[in-house]
């Protein structure tokens, strides 16, 4: 989809630049690091992958959606990306957006915001070698937003746990039982 009027900007909600380098290999568009999860607070992102369509003037044409917008991570999924790619192509060429683009995304609750701040503090303390302090704030974050993957799952590798292990699947089951409380659009093909 090379086009002078279009650009993918990938943002890794991630602490581990080495892992991100592997995922970003051969990618030519900007891949940015967001270890402090600024984006999840600014855009109310609660899981990845999440895509936001932003027009030439900086207005959001289609808000947070759970889509695989690029080849990043595609090997981990069996989901089709072609429908989303077709929609993007149409938007780039004609400006037309799918019906779900008018969806209203629920704001973060105060607890969900506070969870992001506790996460940021925990990550900072961990970088400075204060594992106990980090653990205390990762726990506080998880209490405030127990079904937010950018909070609970992102913390797993930072606490020596696998983000693909038993604890993740337990949280995923709770998330699904709660009706997939994602701040954004979940396209029918992805649900």
């Amino acid at each position, binding site marked *: 989809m090379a086009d002078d009027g279009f*650009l993918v900007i*990938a*943002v890794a909600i991630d602490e581990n630049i080495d892992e991100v380098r592997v995922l970003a290999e051969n990618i030519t568009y900007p891949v940015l690091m*967001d270890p402090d999860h600024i984006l999840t607070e600014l855009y109310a992102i609660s899981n*990845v992958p999440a895509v936001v369509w*932003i027009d030439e003037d*900086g207005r959001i044409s289609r808000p947070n959606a759970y889509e695989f917008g690029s080849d990043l991570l595609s090997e981990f999924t069996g989901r089709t990306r072609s429908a989303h790619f077709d929609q993007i192509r149409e938007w780039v060429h004609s400006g037309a957006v799918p019906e779900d683009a008018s969806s209203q995304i629920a704001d973060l609750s105060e607890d969900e915001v506070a969870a992001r701040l506790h996460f940021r503090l925990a990550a900072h303390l961990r970088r400075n070698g204060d594992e106990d302090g980090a653990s205390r*704030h990762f726990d506080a974050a998880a209490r405030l937003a127990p079904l937010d993957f950018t909070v609970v799952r992102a913390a*797993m590798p930072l606490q020596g746990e696998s983000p693909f292990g038993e604890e993740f699947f337990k949280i995923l089951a709770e998330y699904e039982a709660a009706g997939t409380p994602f701040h954004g659009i979940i396209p029918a093909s992805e649900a």
Partner: protein
Amino acid sequence: MTTITILGDEVATATGEWADGRPLVEPDALSAAVGWTLKPEGLCRDDQCVLVGDGSAIRVGDKLDLAAVANAVDQPTVVDSDAGIVVLGQPNATRQAALRDRQAPDFTLADLDGTLHRLSDYTGKKRLLVAFSSW
């Protein structure tokens, strides 16, 4: 006096003191700490001012409580006095403008080589913002 660490868009420090778990700084130090300045008309930043009445909500003696200042301008905080840290979140209004008014919040982040990119560097293009991770 001690050093208060402020985790905002960047890691900053301010000279101040902790009193009953509250992070206090001299009014002169406020702007460098949180980007807001206390003026007669209120807390001001760029061309915007927020009224703070008689200031009693943000003052402790002749000092200012950083968390109370943030609260007054609707920026969330988490305070850990043991660690000596105030986490200063993004203005709630910025996210609400994204969700309600569709104004994409600007941000600046480094790429894998450390080069900074702003979303607004790419104004004039349609942009697909993709949040992803290794976890």
